């Protein structure tokens, strides 16, 4: 398995074995990610962090990952401070940045931007989110979290809840879970249900899939509840939004009716989807999930930079 020099644009660029290898490498990174062990694995390497859109977790965890491995970071967190402001194309920005670094991590508001960047750059491109397109490192850390918490990926029944239509993370995650043949239940109001092409693709891969609108009824027998934010702007009528948000809130009462070892995940930021009372319970895996972004991104950086095979 050779990752050196590879671009990570979409989860679909990776096979099941490659995903498992990344997760295994990430597992070994945990003590370094926690600061309990030191590492110089990527000493002398430079990561360019090009964030054309706001981000908290993705950018900070990538930068932390690189620094924990002894590498350096250059870049920007908003395009306002760059020549893009003067009208420079993304292609030119990428060609310039690649001459200063060994790997580029980017987030850009346009779909397909990371794929295009990969065509222009000779250094590896890691996609940190391209508009409504892909976010492969989020998907990998979600899979990592499921495996860490539950011991396996495919042997779980996973409920995907909330905005399944527009949420980019759930499309990639559904694909990846289907790759591992995990059973899935899609819980969403009808207007925000999973797009037919995603469902079609998952079914073709042999994953058992069902649809529900009732959160309480559908989460009774699941092992993982993956919650996503329902965005206000998706609803023309604010009343309708308020109603839906109320119905799809995960709280202690709902969790008390489910499996004893069910876990709740969320890519964050959350707004109203999970009641704060859940935070201190054994069910809440979302902050551990946010931490897992560091070892998973450490694994990816080490692999594409050839620090580890």
């Amino acid at each position, binding site marked *: 398995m050779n990752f050196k020099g590879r671009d990570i644009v*979409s989860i679909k660029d990776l096979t099941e074995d490659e995903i498992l290898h990344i997760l295994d490498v990430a597992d070994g990174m945990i003590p370094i990610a926690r600061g309990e062990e030191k590492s110089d694995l990527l000493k002398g390497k430079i990561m360019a962090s090009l964030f054309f859109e706001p981000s908290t977790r993705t950018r900070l965890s990538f930068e932390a990952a690189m620094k924990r491995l002894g590498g350096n970071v250059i870049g920007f967190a908003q395009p306002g401070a760059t020549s893009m402001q003067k009208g420079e*194309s*993304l*292609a030119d920005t990428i060609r310039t940045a690649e001459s200063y670094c060994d790997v580029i991590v980017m987030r*850009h*508001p*346009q*779909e*397909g*931007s990371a*794929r*295009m960047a990969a*065509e222009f750059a000779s250094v590896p491109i890691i996609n940190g989110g*391209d*508009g*409504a*397109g892909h976010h492969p490192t989020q998907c990998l850390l979600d899979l990592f979290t499921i495996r860490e918490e539950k011991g396996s990926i495919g042997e779980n029944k996973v409920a995907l809840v909330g905005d399944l239509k527009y949420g980019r993370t759930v499309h990639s995650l559904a694909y990846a879970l289907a790759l591992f043949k995990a059973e899935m239940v899609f819980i969403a109001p009808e207007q925000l249900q999973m797009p037919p*092409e995603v469902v079609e693709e998952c079914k073709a891969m042999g994953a058992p899939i069902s649809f529900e609108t009732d959160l309480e009824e559908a989460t009774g027998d699941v092992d993982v509840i993956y919650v996503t934010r329902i965005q206000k702007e998706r609803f023309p009528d604010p009343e309708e939004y308020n109603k839906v948000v109320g119905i799809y809130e995960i709280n202690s009462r709902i969790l008390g009716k489910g499996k004893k070892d069910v876990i709740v995940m969320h890519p964050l930021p959350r707004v109203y989807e999970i009641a704060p009372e859940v935070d201190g319970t054994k069910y809440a895996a979302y902050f551990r999930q946010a931490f897992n972004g560091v070892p998973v991104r450490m694994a990816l950086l080490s692999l594409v930079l050839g620090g580890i095979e």
Partner: protein
Amino acid sequence: MKELKIQPIRNGTVIDHITPGCALKVLRILRITEGTGDSIISAVMNVDSKKRKKDIVKIENRELKASEVDKIALIAPNATINIIRDYEVKEKHRVVVPDEIVGIVKCANPNCVSNSREPIKSRFVVKSREPLRIKCFYCERELEDISAGIV
């Protein structure tokens, strides 16, 4: 005597069995009107054929290569290419949809990077040939109305 809508050509290319109404789009895709010199080009639309109506395009004194013409399979999947020499059909073949379609159709996703001011051409990969389904190489969105997306 049967009246001919267009005269037979002596040498050149006849694109036959074009989906009715698509002859002008075919000319546009092939960019045939650009730099063709003195070659006479004729297009007829809605001609009666055995099974259904069709359009025909004739280009005199120019033999189009298969790779040039296969692009039109996007909108005229049943079209045939006939190479004429001295009034006789010397070569005949059906168009084949290429694996990749570059610079001919525009992505319908306004937020796709291929619709921005970047130094790239639109690029589509074929998902299935029958029925024809293509998706953008960049944003991966499927193009629902291929004909409307022709640049």
